């Protein structure tokens, strides 16, 4: 009898828990579900009233049209070029910078680290408006190269901060032991620091990629030529003065979420350990 009431209490607790959890899950995931089903609806069904909760006639026509009748494939390539290039530049520079901030005890390093954190709080629009005229003077406006340079610069403070935390978690004693054994700084860096820091560097790179892939404000301000647009700005440009092309917006939403979802699954395990308190958005 005693065990039975205990079991009953446990089951009742679980039921209450899931009664709370299910609305939370629906709330978190419904917009994704809605974009997903909308992407498979034929145009009459998509624009029809009332809206259908499930797809009545699944069609891939929207995907086919998106890939053949719009510049979306080009936007994908542009996003990829910009994200990969900016991430590469950012990660290489930030790795050197973070190593310096954690392994050398020079005057002003706290002020510098705080200054970097301050820069990372700058709103995109505050930097973007003057940067527009600066890029114009450098002939870098409306070009992927300009976007790559701008992205490397705005992602640097955050990546530096993130990598600094990763480098800090590598115990100094290993390097000190190597120094005692006569290793040079370059050798220590190559044999000890780099292998230990690699998971952190990869996680930071993935994070920077996500930021670049999602970036909208700079691309919105700096790019006007249709074929130079990135995915977020391309998506937004489907809202036209002659009507909104929702039949293209949803398939592109799903396609552009696929790489992000893979990245997310990769870094998820790092989220609770190292990234807490260092996120931006």
């Amino acid at each position, binding site marked *: 009898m005693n065990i039975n009431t205990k079991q009953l209490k446990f089951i009742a607790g679980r039921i209450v*828990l899931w009664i709370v*959890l299910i609305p*939370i*899950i629906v*709330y*978190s*995931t419904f917009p*994704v579900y*809605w974009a997903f089903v*909308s992407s498979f609806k034929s145009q009459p069904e998509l*624009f029809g*009233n*009332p*809206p259908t909760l499930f797809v009545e006639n699944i069609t891939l026509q929207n995907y086919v049209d998106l890939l053949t009748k719009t510049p979306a494939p080009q936007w994908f390539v542009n996003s990829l070029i910009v994200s990969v290039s900016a991430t590469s530049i950012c990660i290489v520079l930030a790795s*050197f*910078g973070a190593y*310096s901030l954690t392994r*050398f005890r*020079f005057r002003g390093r*706290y002020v*510098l680290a705080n200054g*970097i*954190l*301050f*820069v990372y709080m*700058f*709103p995109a*629009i*505050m*930097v*973007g*408006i*003057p*940067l527009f*005229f*600066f890029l114009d003077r450098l002939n870098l406006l409306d070009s992927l190269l300009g976007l790559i*340079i*701008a992205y490397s*610069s705005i992602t640097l*403070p955050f990546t*530096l901060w993130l990598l600094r*935390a990763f480098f*800090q978690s590598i115990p100094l004693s290993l390097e000190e032991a190597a120094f005692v054994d006569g290793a040079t700084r370059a050798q220590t860096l190559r044999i000890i620091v780099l292998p230990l820091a690699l998971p952190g560097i990869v996680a930071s790179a993935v994070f920077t990629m996500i930021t670049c892939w*999602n970036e909208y*404000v700079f691309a919105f301000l700096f790019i006007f030529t249709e074929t130079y647009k990135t*995915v977020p700005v391309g998506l*937004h440009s489907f*809202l036209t003065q002659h009507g909104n092309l*929702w039949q293209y*917006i*949803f398939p592109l*939403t799903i396609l*552009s979420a696929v790489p992000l979802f893979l990245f997310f699954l990769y870094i998820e395990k790092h989220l*609770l350990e190292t*990234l*807490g*308190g260092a*996120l*931006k*958005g």
Partner: protein
Amino acid sequence: MQNRATVAWLFLFPSLLLISAFTLYPVIYSFTLSFQDFQFLTLTGTWIGFENYRRLFDDPMLGRAFVNGLLWFVGNLIPQIILGVGFALILNMKFRGRGIVRTLVILPYFLPGISMFLTWRWMYYDVNGIINHVLQSVGLIDDRILWINSTNLAMMSVVVVGVWRYTPFVVLNCLARLSSIDSTLYEAAKVDGASVFQRFIYITLPQLRSVILIVVLLRGIFTFNKFEEINVITEGGPLGSTTTLPVLSYERAFGALEVGEGSAINTLIFLILSVVAVLYLLNLKPAKELDE
């Protein structure tokens, strides 16, 4: 020792150069633009002193943008903290399927932003939007509601999207702290006869306090800075009812081609931001904390 400091600065130099040229310099450039009458087409400016600021403060839109920004700020922050802490406490319990539920709850923060804002805009549509349809079906409303096309509701509607997207940020930070609480604390309290409620009040809450302080400051800054969800969902409208300071700055510089006025707004944004950032840096000393 002299040599080591040189190497240290050498390693930092490329990063600092890039940040200085393409982030710091534009902000300084923006200050100078705010004192100029700058022509968009010819890209030339003439110095006019505080004229841009004077015009700005004479404009009732600045006050409205400030109030809108305050609504946007408070409307986002309070629900995000309450929901975020609540979700984190629930997701910190042990139950089957916890990993998957955590992933699903954190997901909104990692999805492509613009496409999700567009999806919300579609869900808000008055004619065949799913939100009106569901509310009508269950009998909560009779007439279709103009979620994003009425001056009364537009701000609330974009705030809901902000809360949806950024609550996971709070959940993540709180979960990270909760999972690092030493479990022996709870066991000791249990042995001493503390109830579940007492354990929550005396162990969990004090541990969460510091992380909540950090999250409030960071989320506050990022919320204040936001531009894209408003630009994509309501474009600052209808009738300026969702125009916050960053949106106004964009409209002045690129809509009205008043670059000087837009830059003057940027100066205001910078000043407000600096006050909060200095509070954050002085009180929490994030750089030193990580070192220890």
